[in-house]
């Protein structure tokens, strides 16, 4: 008997009798017979738990990339995840619950959502955050749709240094909504070169740091935009020590929250964070938890400002989003609480320090250089004559970096990009340098 299906033949008989039908198939008489007769089974027989475990384990072990030392970034980073995160996530009262529509039996979820919103506002320097989006790319796309609704503009200024995957998802959403993307080039330093702001602009996007790893200076940008939105797509770990976009007047700050306590997961599930200003609250997509009181005056939390959402406002909603990335947001909450301000600062600075250490050692190797003068954080581009060969040399030493083709859409054809987190040891940095120095 299947372990997930508890009805015995006796149960089924008595239930059928209570309903007044002869057999289970009779309960499907409303599905046209010719539709049912066209059904084709997959040819799968049921497997026992051991066989299922074996099949999935075999697949998992076939991915050789897992065994390499990762100097991989591009928006997703291999940071240390404290054990406490996984243990709290595996409390099934959290992960087997639905969206907290019944607040009296959902105070656990609603309380951590409130904590998460607080922490995201603290990281980004913003006033209000939603309880999560699918990922950093769709969060950015939704921010642009929100800017369009708020300003009426149909032009989006998009840096040429924006992460190519963010741009691809954004361009699908923008096409769907009838918006035009205008490229904004970058300087020789690798920083945004904003020339002018055309009429009808609804938003300028700035990525911090950008896909070349270079940190942008946001000072004065909002002032040049008029009523158009300044939307920042920010990497969360650097925000521990870098002035957050909210301090420069950003209207929306979004980003990929995976580095906060979530595994790489082959790219999903991820965590989109989304923060804005109170003046834009009613245009914000996504769920939000708010503090209030119960009938006895006791503090509690509810999902609030729900008239923005699809289940009430339908085609007038601020977004169609319903299910989001709640459990990943819980991971981020526990991660930030576990590290605290000092721990997060330390993760950021360790990553910064080791990245800069490695960068300067690579730049000292003949034939290798750092093409962008702009300041970077924990990821940087290396220029060399034959990047494919360099990546192969690293691979032979058991080291993984992103394929050089990652940089092609960014206009870089003579380099590759390296990311360093606090997990990379001094020995691994040595190994990296030795591999590049070798033939």
């Amino acid at each position, binding site marked *: 008997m299947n372990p997930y*299906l508890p009805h015995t033949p006796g149960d089924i008989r008595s239930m059928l009798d209570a309903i007044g039908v002869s057999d289970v*198939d009779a309960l499907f008489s409303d599905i046209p017979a010719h539709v049912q007769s066209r059904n084709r089974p997959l040819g799968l027989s049921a497997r026992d738990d051991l066989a299922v475990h074996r099949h*999935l384990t075999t697949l*998992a072990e076939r991915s050789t*990339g897992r065994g390499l030392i990762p100097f991989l970034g591009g928006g997703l980073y291999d940071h240390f995840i404290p054990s406490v995160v996984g243990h709290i996530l595996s409390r099934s009262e959290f*992960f087997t619950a639905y969206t*907290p529509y019944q607040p009296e039996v959902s105070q656990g979820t609603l309380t951590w959502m409130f904590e998460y919103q607080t922490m995201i506002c603290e990281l980004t320097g913003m006033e209000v955050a939603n309880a999560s989006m699918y*990922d950093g790319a769709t969060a950015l796309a939704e921010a642009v749709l929100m800017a369009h609704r708020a300003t009426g503009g149909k032009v989006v200024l998009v840096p040429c240094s924006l992460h190519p995957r963010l741009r691809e998802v954004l361009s699908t959403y923008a096409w769907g909504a009838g918006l035009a993307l205008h490229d904004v080039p970058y300087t020789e330093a690798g920083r945004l070169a904003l020339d002018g702001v055309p009429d009808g602009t609804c938003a300028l996007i700035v990525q911090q740091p950008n896909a070349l790893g270079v940190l942008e200076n946001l000072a004065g940008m909002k002032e040049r935009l008029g009523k158009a939105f300044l939307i920042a797509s920010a990497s969360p770990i650097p925000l521990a020590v870098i002035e957050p976009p909210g301090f420069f007047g950003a209207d929306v700050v979004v980003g990929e929250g995976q580095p906060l306590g979530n595994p790489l997961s082959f790219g999903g599930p991820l965590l989109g964070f989304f923060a804005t200003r109170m003046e834009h609250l009613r245009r914000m997509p996504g769920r939000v938890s708010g503090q209030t009181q119960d009938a006895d005056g006791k503090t509690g939390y509810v999902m609030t400002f729900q008239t923005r959402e699809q289940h009430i406002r339908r085609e007038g909603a601020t977004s169609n989003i319903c299910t989001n990335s709640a*459990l990943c947001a819980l991971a981020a909450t526990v991660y930030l609480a576990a590290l605290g301000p000092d721990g997060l600062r330390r993760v950021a600075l360790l990553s910064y320090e080791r990245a800069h250490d490695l960068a300067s050692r690579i730049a000292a190797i003949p034939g290798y250089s750092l093409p962008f003068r702009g300041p970077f954080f924990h990821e940087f581009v290396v220029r060399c004559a034959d990047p494919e060969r360099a990546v192969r040399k690293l691979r032979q030493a058991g080291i993984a970096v992103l394929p050089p083709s990652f940089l092609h859409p960014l206009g870089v054809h003579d380099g590759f990009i390296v990311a360093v987190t606090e997990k990379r040891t001094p020995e691994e940095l040595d190994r990296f340098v030795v591999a590049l120095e070798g033939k």
Partner: protein
Amino acid sequence: MSTIYDHGAPGRQAVALPQLGKVEQGLLGAIPADLRRRDGPRLPEVSQPELVRHYTALSRMNYGVDTGFYPLGSCTMKHNPKLHEDLARLPGFADLHPLLPPEACQGALALLWETAEHLKGITGMPGITLQPAAGAHGELTGMFLIKRWLEDRGELGRRTKILLPDSAHGTNPASAAMVGFTVVSIPSDRRGMVNLDALRGALGSDVAGIMLTVPNTLGIFEEDIVTITDLVHDAGGLCYFDGANLNAYLGRARPGDMGADVFHINLHKTFSTPHGGGGPGAGPVTVSEVLVPYLPVPEIARKGETYHLDWDRPKSIGRVHPYFGNVLVIVKALAYILSLGDEGMRAVSGGAVLAANYLKAKLKGAYKLPYDQLAKHEFVLSGEGMGNGVRTLDVAKRLIDYGFHPPTIYFPLIVKEALMIEPTETEPRETLDTFAEALLSIAAEAREHPELLREAPHETPVRRLDEARAVREPRLKLDF
């Protein structure tokens, strides 16, 4: 209700990290002054025992499928198999970076390919994308696909309307609106099904398509489903099926055989993956032949025993997800499909429909049943006329006192005081009996002791909360 910020003391932390290197103090100074953060983020400072106790305490104020019966209509809150959680944590999936070249991720690509083939077979449709991260994301992807199809045929400016039954989920109109379609509502008939005359009247050369939920949100199968899809196709439109209710006919019928052109599958409903308190889920989309050229890139393709990414789809809508979709959710769905096999999948829909009709039979004397049809996996009662001013909300809150999670309430909108009950196939008969007894007892209480309902719940960490206050005096984060 304390938050994590109410615990701890300055200097505490819950994890030991490596020391900074040579420039411990000076390093922050290495960051250019114009970028350096002046005031650090205010985060909790707690030791590990405080951290664990706080979140354990929070978890105990939650109700999950593992806590008890969760008959939330339209949400398919079935048991979440424990084996799957272990499988999703395997390092070969969980620790794999998605930008590695395909040769380094063959196992993960095989997982995706294999799941995709099964989902195509289950839905009877020839094309698929696994990218959508949730059901609504799948709907949006479907709307993008229909828009691209119209664009390709030169009909974009002309076909601007999407038809929707008045019983539709709110995500449907919201998804259509995000792509610029105008939504036209089609009324239901007395049986709770699409009114065919109204449909015929609405169809025309300005219609891009229809979005249908099958069975619909009353839990009723559209007996005229093939007539409906034929009518829409004859009028030059396409048919989107919202797959939230696939659990009702899994392994017995296929949307592709009913005339669907786009179908989204909520893996976190039918395929048993946990809801996570509101995600992550996954919303793969299968399509008919006509929409295959427009699917998102890249396609995961197989040549012999080797998997690669195929970008050769010039008419594609592009990406809807930065990588491959919610892979760890897909791991669990594949494990579920394999453990069930064909017979198991039939048994799932059989058990789900059996449980729903069983509960309906037990309850229909005590509660109004506005549409007394054969139910599929769920059915809708009404709390109207309970007496003493008792409303559905009161019934729902009183159920909490009996130890159950309430059903979905006030949806679908076409039933006044709706109570939408979806038991799923994973509940033992005894649980269904206890639940039915609770609802019968509450119906009696509504007549004799209505205050018990109006003041419910009684034993929860908080009582009914003032939602108006939450909007009038917004507190959406801590004020420091």
